[in-house]
């Protein structure tokens, strides 16, 4: 028993290694505080670890993982009794703790900063949909499931974000 456990543990560590960034990134969209963010991310992985026997293969639990992350983050905000529970008025900077590196053919690093700022001005739900589709490479359908909204909504939100980018870039000229 202990040998297979060890083997699974190794696999799981590998899984954590591969997905850590995704989960931290996703939780940081809700929770501004760095330490809480780390704590919640480790909670997400622990709940996967503890439920390992009930879950399908580690490879296919990607969406489940982000759904758990969302719930943990929202529960945390609820417990903290923060007003930010209303996702639409949430004003946290979604690019905190990150670095965005463009290829610098068409746009400069400075432009990226400005575009990040523009994205940050969007309603929170729009930011979430945009990040899931853009960074986490989710399909509209997957993003819709994670955020419990309709596919049409995600589609509209991503378009709004792109529109915002367009405005910003046009105004620069």
């Amino acid at each position, binding site marked *: 028993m202990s040998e297979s456990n060890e083997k699974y543990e190794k696999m799981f560590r590998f899984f954590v290694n591969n997905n850590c960034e995704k989960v931290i990134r996703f939780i940081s969209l809700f929770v501004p505080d760095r330490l809480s963010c780390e704590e919640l*991310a480790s909670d997400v992985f622990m709940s996967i670890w503890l439920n390992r026997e009930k879950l399908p293969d580690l490879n296919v639990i990607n969406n489940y993982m982000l759904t758990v992350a969302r719930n943990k983050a929202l529960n945390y905000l609820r417990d903290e009794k923060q007003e930010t529970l209303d996702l639409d008025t949430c004003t946290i900077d979604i690019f905190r703790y990150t670095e965005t590196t463009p290829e610098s*053919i068409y746009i400069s690093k400075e432009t990226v900063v400005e575009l990040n700022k523009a994205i940050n001005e969007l309603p929170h739900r729009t930011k979430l949909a945009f990040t899931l*589709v853009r960074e986490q490479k989710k399909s509209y359908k997957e993003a819709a499931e994670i955020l419990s909204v309709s596919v049409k909504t995600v589609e509209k939100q991503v378009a709004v974000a*792109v529109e915002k980018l367009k405005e910003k870039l046009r105004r620069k000229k």
Partner: protein
Amino acid sequence: MEKDFSSLASKILSGEATEQERETLRQMLHESEDDALLFNEIKEYWDAKVVTDRNMQASVDEKIHSRIKGSVAQSRRNNFINSFWRAAAIFLLLLSCGTIYYYNAYPSHTYMYATQGAISDYILGDSTKVKLNKYSSITFTSSFGKNNRRVDLSGEAYFEVTKDAAKKFTVRTQDTETTVFGTEFNVLSDKKSKQVTVTLSKGSVGFEAYKCQTLLHPGEEIVYDVVSGDYNKQITDLQFNTAWTTGRYLYSDITFGEFIRKLEHIYHIRIDIDYPDIENKVITALFLVERPIGEILSALKDELKFKYRETDEAGIVIEKSK
């Protein structure tokens, strides 16, 4: 009806566009240079890598590791007790419902804190502070703080023990016991060289092992050889032995060979020296804990005229440079 730029572009970037939509955008970009440039700019922003702070990742990884270690220890205990109760039947269901109460009822549940590639701080039940060096672990049972304060150590740790004259605090490692009532000290248990080094910052500690029973005073350290039972007590410069707790490593006037053995221990990596003359050169080195090993070696390589390369087994070989 012409679909607008943003909704088309967003669908294409998301990989959700139909063939027809792709064709429409292609047309649009073909007709207008402005739109084409704009699309390229947005696409570059879209594709740009967004990287999360590495330190946060490392910290989460660390947390998971120690929590899993804890839960594995729990489940082993769990299995043992389960089979015991299965024989006695009846209460099993009730018990597995209330795991937490259940553990409290069984004093010998084991906890473990373990680190990988980063130093970590822990606070024990008696508010004793433990700073655990890389690749180290401490284990203790749930009776910790009740009738004893005993931990098992593997690797290296710095302890700031909360005073409790009634209950001594004991660190066990490689068949040695270091006992204190309330003080600050460092224990380094090196399994490779079979040595245990205890360094005392404040107060007094008792050190006990086979053929050895002695008391240390502040500023003293003892180096005990586990195999022979030989030991050596000496006045030490505290800064050197405890520098790692402040995120630095400091080695003064040691030979290169010794230094490399320390690096092997710190970085958990095998380093072979294929350049005998270099081993006895004396060096002094100060470096930060989180620097990668390559950086440390490359800082020394010109002065000492060596080169190094990685082996297939993820070790390092040091050779004479031409």
